[in-house]
């Protein structure tokens, strides 16, 4: 992205706080001016008080200096707080904006990016911008201002000595620029390694059960060690450059000061200049080199910020692929009639995963979706939830194209129960009430009872207030599943998607879940994906998918008589159950 545009975009975050930001800037200017005054007053002290033994002025001058130091400290306190305040607010705004935007992005974005990389942008990159927005920009302006004022003071005091003071400047500027050029790519590498390290953590820690089940702790440790080593190498490269640069900078300025000191001393000894002026020069010179170096470094500091800004804005500039159409509809009442009409869909252009999908689900019907893995069953229900839009054809809810409906409204009509239910870290009650804001306790209990979950919940140590742990790990698989069914029941959706909802639990739990599902599916249009075909006996209609197309459609008995794929799958499962019986 263009640098100027990025900078403008960054600065725009100060907009809501411009009065405070300007106050902070003015305080910074005042702080800098007060920092320069003591150098001038030192000259006065030496030339007008110490040398002429002017006792009368000594105390007043010292009190003046004390006053300046106190004022500078007071301004420093207020300024530091203001800067932190602005930084914290800007970071807060940015983080909320990025996270809100992430929530709007489609599943496609999240499948393309690694979780850790996304997290790194929301945390690390935004933190890096905090300093630049709150202080970096002001520092650049203040440093320019300070350099200018010191230049004027030096030239007014002694033009020739001032010119000598400026001698090391080109060298400092050049070396700082070169340093910036060298360190910038190294920092880039450090950040990329850091993001990749976060990605490993975000991958391995949620999958720790798989890691342990396969006894792959060493492999994961090696993976992290590998990424850590890559990070270490780049950090050491950066450290080498830092270690080299600062002593060199110190040497340059020290050499510069020797020239000024030498020439200045001669001038004093020969009576062309007072001692006070020389001391003032020496003080100002040190105060001069630092902002010069900071300005030299400006390029690389801006680069730092812009790199992070680019990563953050890349997220913000990613337009949600699925948006509400103008005048999107919210139906006053949903009956639940779903029609797929000539639907074609592909994740990648030219590789359709669904073709010629045509069927109607009448309100309250249970539609079984079966077929081999990769046949397109899950994709089909994803399209119904409008996680993706069809390439061609239409999906209609009560005769309205789902693309014409408000996305929020559409998804409120659809309840989902997955094979591996995802619970959030929170209480049982919070998880059941997740889809309904401000659900009443009575409603939560009713949903839990309908899901056959109430009895196990009241037996938990804290009942409905029991914290389920990250992803609900403190509950068993069957308990998690029943909580997720209660969550779906409470939403009271008109359409229900059951994705292998009973396949990963024991028989007794399956019975409890099946009872709960029976209650859940009543009066709702239900799409049930199932590998265990016996669970679909009661389905109104079974759609058999193969290679992204509908191979067969009919009731259980019709398909069983038809000698097609469904019939073959049923026979195969019957054979398998015999094999399992030994």
């Amino acid at each position, binding site marked *: 992205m263009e640098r100027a545009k990025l900078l403008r975009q960054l600065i725009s975050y100060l907009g809501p706080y411009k009065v405070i930001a300007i106050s902070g800037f003015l305080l910074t200017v005042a702080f800098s001016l007060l920092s320069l005054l003591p150098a001038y007053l030192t000259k006065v002290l030496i030339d007008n008080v110490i040398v002429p033994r002017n006792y009368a002025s000594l105390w007043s001058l010292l009190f003046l200096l004390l006053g300046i130091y106190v004022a500078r400290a007071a301004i420093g306190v207020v300024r530091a707080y203001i800067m932190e305040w602005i930084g914290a607010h800007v970071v807060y705004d940015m983080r909320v904006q990025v996270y809100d935007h992430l929530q709007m992005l489609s599943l496609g974005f999240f499948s393309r990016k690694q979780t850790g990389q996304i997290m790194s942008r929301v945390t690390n990159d935004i933190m890096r911008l905090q300093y630049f927005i709150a202080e970096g920009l002001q520092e650049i302006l203040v440093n320019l201002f300070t350099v200018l004022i010191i230049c004027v003071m030096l030239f007014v005091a002694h033009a020739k000595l001032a010119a000598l003071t400026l001698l090391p400047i080109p060298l400092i500027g050049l070396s700082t620029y070169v340093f910036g050029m060298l360190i910038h790519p190294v920092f880039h590498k450090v950040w990329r390694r850091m993001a990749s390290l976060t990605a490993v953590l975000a991958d391995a820690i949620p999958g720790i059960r798989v890691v342990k089940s396969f006894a792959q702790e060493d492999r994961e440790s090696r993976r992290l060690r590998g990424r850590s080593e890559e990070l270490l190498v780049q950090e050491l490269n950066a450290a080498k450059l830092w270690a080299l640069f600062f002593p060199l900078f110190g040497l340059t300025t020290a050499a510069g000061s020797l020239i000024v000191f030498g020439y200045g001393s001669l001038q004093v000894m020969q009576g062309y200049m007072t001692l006070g002026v020389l001391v003032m020069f020496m003080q100002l010179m040190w105060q001069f080199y630092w902002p010069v170096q900071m300005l030299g470094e400006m390029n690389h500091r801006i680069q730092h910020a812009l790199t992070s800004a680019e990563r953050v804005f890349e997220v913000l500039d990613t337009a949600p692929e699925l948006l509400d159409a103008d005048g999107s509809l919210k139906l006053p009442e949903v009956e639940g009639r779903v029609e797929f009409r000539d639907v074609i869909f592909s994740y990648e252009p030219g590789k359709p995963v669904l073709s010629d999908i045509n069927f109607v689900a009448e309100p309250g019907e249970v539609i079984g979706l079966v077929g081999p893995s990769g046949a397109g069953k899950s994709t089909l229900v994803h399209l119904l939830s409008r996680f993706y839009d069809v390439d061609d054809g239409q999906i209609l809810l009560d005769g309205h194209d789902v693309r014409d409906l408000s996305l929020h409204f559409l998804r409120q009509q659809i309840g989902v129960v997955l094979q591996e239910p995802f619970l959030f870290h929170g*209480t049982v*009650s919070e998880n059941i009430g997740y889809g309904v804001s401000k659900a009443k*306790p*009575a*409603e939560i*209990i*009713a*949903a839990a*009872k*309908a899901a056959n979950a*109430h*009895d*196990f919940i*009241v*037996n938990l140590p*804290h*009942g*409905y*207030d029991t*914290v389920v742990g990250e992803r609900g790990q403190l509950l068993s698989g069957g308990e998690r599943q029943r909580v997720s069914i209660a969550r779906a*029941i*409470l939403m*009271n959706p008109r359409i229900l998607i059951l994705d292998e909802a009973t396949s990963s639990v024991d028989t007794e739990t399956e019975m409890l879940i099946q*009872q709960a599902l*029976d*209650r859940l599916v*009543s*009066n709702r249009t239900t799409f049930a994906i199932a590998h265990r075909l016996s669970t679909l006996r009661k389905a109104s209609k079974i759609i058999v998918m193969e290679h992204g197309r509908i191979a067969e459609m009919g009731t259980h008995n019709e398909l069983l008589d038809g000698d097609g794929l469904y019939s073959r799958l049923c026979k195969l499962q019957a054979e398998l159950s015999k094999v399992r019986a030994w």
Partner: protein
Amino acid sequence: MRVPQGLLVKEPKDNQAEAPADASWEAELGRLEMIGPERVRVWRDEFRRLHVQLDGETEHVDVKPARVFPVSGAADLVSFLDHDGKEVLLVENPEGLDPESRRTLQEEIARTYFVPKITYVYDIEDSHGAARWEVETDRGYRVFDVRDREDVRVLEGTRVLLQDADGNRFEVEDLTLLDERSRRLIDKEI
């Protein structure tokens, strides 16, 4: 004669039917029966077993009361569970029970949910990844270890619930009512 645990000793007038499979959510919500306190009697027998009786007829013996929302207090409900952990009655507003039943229930609940209230914190010291709390409670001086920061939960901004390494629970009812030193020490842990 010895009565088996959790046994329904008297049949109800209208046996509550199993929820039909075709019930809608609205019907489920309507079916949720929370029993008013005026219909319930609770007492202990000579073997200290808890009895609960509905409308003077349906009686369950050796039941265990469980508060439904014991932490948040989102609703004042008590579930009576039989020995299989199955709910036999869900009673709302137990404060409205007759005085004898209320006293009995409160004693049972207090035993189940024994949570000392922290009134002063002497010290909280981090050692070996756990935090050792040295506190004064309404039940006296206590020292306990909190294994994880996750075991210290803040509710409603000022109420703090803790669980020690042995599963015992402690509570700070209102952080703002503690002295400054105690507040400062707890503040580091939350």
